[in-house]
């Protein structure tokens, strides 16, 4: 962590780095090498694209479109590509549907294979030895530590990713979301739910003005 370091160049309200960045941007814009709009677009794209939002879009579509869901479960790679998301060639995406009786959870026991085109980069716990080893041996206990208590009647399936095959969980659509639009549904879907260590929750206060 180097969070304390920022103060060292602090001059008045703006840091040296902030002034320097502003100067560089202004010069490049004045010279016609770049526009502020392009920079805005880039930042927005990366803030949105490389988080788990792509995966959430896939889930949202599957929840509202049964034929898409069917295609998604049959051939994850192609159905995800339909929405414009894809990764390296040769990596297949398999989408696993959670139901009231089956709960899927994803791991990579060997390293940290992860469906990054849809989920961004893996969280640090996903790469930890503890998670990789324990979720296979005692998934119910591990899920409980994540705050997910599953009834004994629910079968837990653990899927081990590898360089050819990446898994993503299609979480259950929560009850009480029947009135919600696809865009609103997308905003409910979390990364953890698509790894399978959480369920999708409906916010306690559904204020729709």
């Amino acid at each position, binding site marked *: 962590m180097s969070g304390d370091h920022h103060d060292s160049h602090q001059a008045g309200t703006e840091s040296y780095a902030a*002034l320097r960045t502003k*100067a560089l941007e202004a010069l490049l814009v004045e010279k016609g090498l770049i526009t502020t709009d392009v920079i805005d677009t880039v930042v927005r794209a990366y803030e949105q*694209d490389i988080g788990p939002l792509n995966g959430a879009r896939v889930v949202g579509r599957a929840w509202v479109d049964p034929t898409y869901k069917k295609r998604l479960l049959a051939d994850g790679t192609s159905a995800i590509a339909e929405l414009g998301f894809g990764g390296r060639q040769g990596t297949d995406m398999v989408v696993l549907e959670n139901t009231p009786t089956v709960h899927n959870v994803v791991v990579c026991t060997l390293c940290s294979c992860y469906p990054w085109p849809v989920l961004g980069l893996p969280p640090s716990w996903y790469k930890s030895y503890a998670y990789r080893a324990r979720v296979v041996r005692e998934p119910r206990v591990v899920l409980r530590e994540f705050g997910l208590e599953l009834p004994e009647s629910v079968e837990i399936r653990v899927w081990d990713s590898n360089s050819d095959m990446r898994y993503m969980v299609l979480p259950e659509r929560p009850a009480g979301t029947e009135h919600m639009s696809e865009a609103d549904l997308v905003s409910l879907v979390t990364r953890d739910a698509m790894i399978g260590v959480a369920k999708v929750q409906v916010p306690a206060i559904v204020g729709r003005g």
Partner: protein
Amino acid sequence: MRAASDPRIANMDEQVALPRQNGELVFAAPWEARAFGLAVALNEAGVYPWRDFSQGLAAETAAGEQHGAPASYYERWLETLEKLAIAKGLVTPAELDARTAEYACGAHDAHEE
């Protein structure tokens, strides 16, 4: 239009990987996002291949560790960006210093054309 992110940028090696929280990018201050956008936009404009940037960032990181000067991730990022911009002849160190100094004493309005 939906700009796509480049996996070579989104998934750099751990040593120089973009700071994230819950999978999403984190910027501690607005200038960090600007510096990020500048570097990526110049790459997309064909000014340099991304490899040049990531290697520069790795070198900056290694140098920082050697000198025990723990600059933040985006301070190193900015340093890399400046060096590349200068090496490619986009700006000169003198004009960059001068403009920074102007902003520091509020002499130059950042928004004027």
